[in-house]
């Protein structure tokens, strides 16, 4: 059942719809869709932005090959149910082509996604990619514009960003370059969950509490998967957990939870003291500027 949104969330939704509608003059836009909650919210907002017309953009998924199967099923079902066309580009194909070299077979493919993403942009000549990044996620993201310029190499130049005043967005870009557009820049994780709950937006089941075999390590819960290593001295147990992000299987950890629906997750999120990337991602921890470095070479 649909519920009323708070004043702040109403404001954020109207802003996001406005931003999405501004992309109508961009060259060949697509919605970046990982099957995660943020991209599901963006795709949902696009439906609201264009209703009763169909969303004129495809969903673009960069498949790391390290996804939980629930996420892929969700992706296909979401596209089918809401009438999106779906483009999938696989990191595996980039590896086969020789454009991606991984340090080891099971290494995180998070960084490698950037290569595949740029290959997809070039192949389809996308001029604008609408993504679900939020400024509250991480320090480098907090510096991001709403319409963010990327050159032909996908490079983000944080010191050369276009001035962005009022709600007058510069939607132009040179041929070969592209824009990343972030309609939910000003949302927090709490806003996401309030919106998911109020609008009853479907999400992968991984986001809700389920029993899973995990091992504790440095405050993280490491799930047993084909891609994560449970060390010899570590003991595992079946615990009730949910994921706060559903990225690369090799580096995404769940948190302990009994929340079985979006309202319960919202309640838990309101009291959670830690940012979602801090306790659940192994990759951003490598350096303070890990995200900035990845973004500079074309990451989402």
């Amino acid at each position: 059942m649909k519920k009323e949104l708070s004043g702040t969330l109403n404001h954020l939704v109207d802003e996001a719809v406005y931003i999405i509608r501004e992309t109508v003059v961009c060259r060949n836009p697509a919605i970046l869709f990982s099957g995660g909650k943020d991209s599901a919210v963006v795709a949902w907002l696009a439906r609201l932005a264009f209703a009763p017309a169909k969303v004129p953009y495809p969903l673009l998924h960069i498949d790391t090959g390290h996804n939980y199967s629930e996420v892929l099923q969700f992706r296909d079902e979401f596209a089918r149910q809401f009438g999106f066309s779906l483009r999938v580009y696989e990191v595996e194909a980039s590896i086969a082509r020789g454009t991606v070299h991984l340090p080891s077979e099971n290494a995180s493919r998070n960084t490698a996604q950037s290569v595949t993403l740029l290959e997809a942009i070039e192949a389809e000549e996308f001029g604008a990619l609408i993504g679900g990044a939020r400024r509250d996620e991480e320090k480098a993201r907090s510096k991001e514009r709403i319409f963010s310029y990327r050159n032909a190499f996908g490079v983000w130049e944080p010191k050369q960003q276009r001035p962005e005043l009022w709600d007058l967005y510069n939607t132009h870009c040179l041929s070969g370059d592209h824009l990343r557009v972030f309609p939910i820049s000003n949302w927090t994780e709490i806003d996401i969950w309030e919106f998911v709950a109020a609008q009853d937006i479907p999400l992968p089941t991984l986001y809700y509490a389920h029993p899973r075999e995990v091992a504790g390590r440095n405050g993280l819960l490491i799930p047993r998967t084909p891609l994560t290593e449970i060390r010899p001295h570590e003991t595992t147990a079946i615990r009730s957990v949910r994921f706060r992000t559903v990225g690369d299987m090799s580096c995404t950890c769940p948190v302990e939870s009994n929340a079985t629906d979006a309202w319960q997750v919202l309640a838990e999120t309101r009291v959670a003291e830690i940012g979602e990337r801090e306790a659940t991602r192994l990759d951003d921890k490598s350096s303070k500027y890990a995200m900035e470095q990845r973004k500079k070479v074309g990451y989402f």
Partner: protein
Amino acid sequence: MDRLITLSTAGSVDDGKSTLLGRLILDSRNLHATSADAISADAELDLSEFTDGLAAEREQKITIDVGWRHLSLNGDRYLLADSPGHEQYTRNQVTAASHADALIVLIDPTKLDLDAPTVRLLPQTYRHFMIATLLGIRDICLVINKLDLLADPEKAFVQVTKAINRMLDLQPVNSAGVVTTTIPASALKGDNIVRRAEFAEYTGPTVLEWLQETKIRVLDIPKQDVTSVMSVQTTLRSAGQSSQPFRGVAGRISRGRFSVGQAICVLPEKLTANIVSIRRLGDNVSEGFAGQSVTLELDRELDVTRGAYIVSMSLTEPERARALNACGCHLFWLDGTAGQTGKSYLLKTGTREIQARITELNEKFDPDDFSFVRLSDQLAKFQPECNGIYRARFRFSAPIWLELSSPSESVLNRFLLIEPQTFKTVAAGIFDVRLDPD
């Protein structure tokens, strides 16, 4: 109606903007742990780690670009735009200020000559204050920071307050309706930021109290007697073979409200129609308000496309707004490449883009003197340069509708200037017919 309030900060390099924001976050116990790695035993020394996010910023201990942060205080939520102090990043400062409902300007009294017969503020302070006023920020808080470092803080407070009052008196642009507040503080120690500190005769608010009062004021701005404006972003038609074909104009209401049955006018053509239905987030509603993204269905097939304005009939009264082929403006030049008079640029107002030329560059803001200085008649010599604020005049390739009063609050009068070959955003500004010769 409740909405997200945006706060921005301004000051010169090392005036302690990031420290003040860090202090607000820390002392109000709303520290989000994504920033927690910055808080260590020596947190007192480096609160700026909260907001400076880029490698180059931490290396140099300065803020280069706008950083966006959420702040939740006693259940009130704010968006903070922390912005750079360096003159070379004024363009990012302008970006941040354009989004702000309220602004904190930091003043570092240790950089001022407090023994001078007439104490002067730093040029950057005058510049920031001018930017804020031109952009129509109505609530400005001047924080006299670092008072803990002075031998005679009370004298410093008195002297700086006098300098601020002189600035307000000299203000060369109309600042009617702007509310200014002066607060003596130490961001590093936390004095008068969240925690009240005993200070001479000062009985005014702390920064947090000012923020809470400001939120109430911003949300209370009277809504009566405003004309309504919506920029058309696109037109939408129902998908497939629907039994009731739908054609609507989609956009976000910038100001005022629209209701079902209301007569409206479409600009620039001045066509009229009535609103048949209003949709928001896929549902039918009877009214749409400022800030809402809606789709309006009109009672007749008009040629309404992206770039048009839907406005209430009263807006087109000749004393309110007019379609003009040329107009004066305040211009912020934001690009490293100087502008050229006579050259054609893309000009974006609302959702419309036309071509425009700078035909006159008349005056330049002088931050040392807090005034606009007349440029000589030899126009060809002058080019608008990065971080400069000018009074200029544009000619348009097609007439555009501009409002005659309160330009800083008019959504019609704001513009971006885009270089037509590189597509860089090179300038922004606000048209003001009062700058035109009579």
